[in-house]
């Protein structure tokens, strides 16, 4: 009952809030890239460069996005600002959930203290 009444709602709230916060993360970039590049989504980063050369005025913005994408794609999370942002958001939610669980455990221990249950 405890799991059903308290823990599962906490986890669901955490997931829903995290989902809307992560709406702009690179995970969602597949659909954005699909809209921007009209069918080239899902391709490896190198293939985008030919497309960027045609649209000269968008090169600098696209080049920065590509660099950040490279940093994360090629396993260099410490260089990606997106990773830093993701880390802090996840830590914020974990802190919130941990405080909630600590309160539940504290109340539980208060109720059972002195009854000899170990």
């Amino acid at each position, binding site marked *: 009952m405890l*799991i059903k009444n308290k823990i599962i709602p906490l986890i669901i709230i955490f997931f829903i809030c995290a*989902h809307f916060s992560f709406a702009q993360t690179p995970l969602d970039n597949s659909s954005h890239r699909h809209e921007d590049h009209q069918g080239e989504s*899902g391709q490896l980063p190198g293939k985008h460069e030919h497309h960027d050369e045609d649209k000269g005025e968008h090169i600098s913005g696209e080049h920065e996005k590509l660099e950040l994408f490279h940093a994360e*794609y090629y396993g260099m999370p410490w260089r990606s600002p997106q990773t830093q942002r993701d*880390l802090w958001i996840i*830590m914020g939610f974990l802190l919130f959930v*941990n405080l909630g669980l*600590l309160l539940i455990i504290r109340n539980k221990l208060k109720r059972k203290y002195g009854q000899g249950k170990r």
Partner: protein
Amino acid sequence: MNLRNIYLISAITFKEMIRKGLFYLVLFFSAGIILFSYYMNFFSMGSQTPIIKDFSLSSISFFSVMLTMALCVTLIPFELENKTIYPILSKPVRRYEYILGKFFGVMLLIALNLFLLGVLLITVLYLRESALNYIIFKAAILILAQCMVVGAITILFSFIVTPPVNFSLMFFIYLFGCLSNAYIGYIVGMMIINAGGITTFFTNVTAFLLQAFKIILPTFAFFNIKEAVVHGYLVSGFYVFEVVVYALLYASFTLMLAYLIFENKDL
């Protein structure tokens, strides 16, 4: 909270685990791989040092995680099955002290394993380059943090499923967690291409579920700084601090859930 109880249980767990052959097997196997990479010339076209670093760090990371899973999978279920947990809990030891003591005992062993292998790797690299690679310590700290998360989740699942199912599940979670967000975005993009460039209900649901798993499950890609070690990039101490805090928060969240399940369990 009685810290003495936690310390005593962790010390007993540490001694018990160190007597098991599995620790020595993993330690000597990983050490063998590090020494083998030192003498391995056929993969290197030029400098052998990146090969040594890449090979050694991958094996240290992988085998440390496997050791953590193997130790934590049977940590508490065997004691419950053999009823050896009763004498401990009948003393003034609370269930959360018991879980914390067991967890810290295993983590001490993993830390010892990482320390020995880290020193060996630094020595091997010093013999090769005549320079000390202090970034290996940062990588070792992050591997330890990764093992903390894996260990905590394994202990949580040990109250819910049987040890073989637990191990398989944890292996899947570890593999999935190692994938970066960008790679998952690439998988979703390929699904869209295979569907003819149209986002169907199926692709949207799959993308949503992948995103959900990516958020709920731990992201082990954060702990991987192998590229920095191999290519000599700088990794700031603040990044290591951030990831360690993330690991501590995730492990504490998982252990609190484990305690709540254990508290309601009739022994």
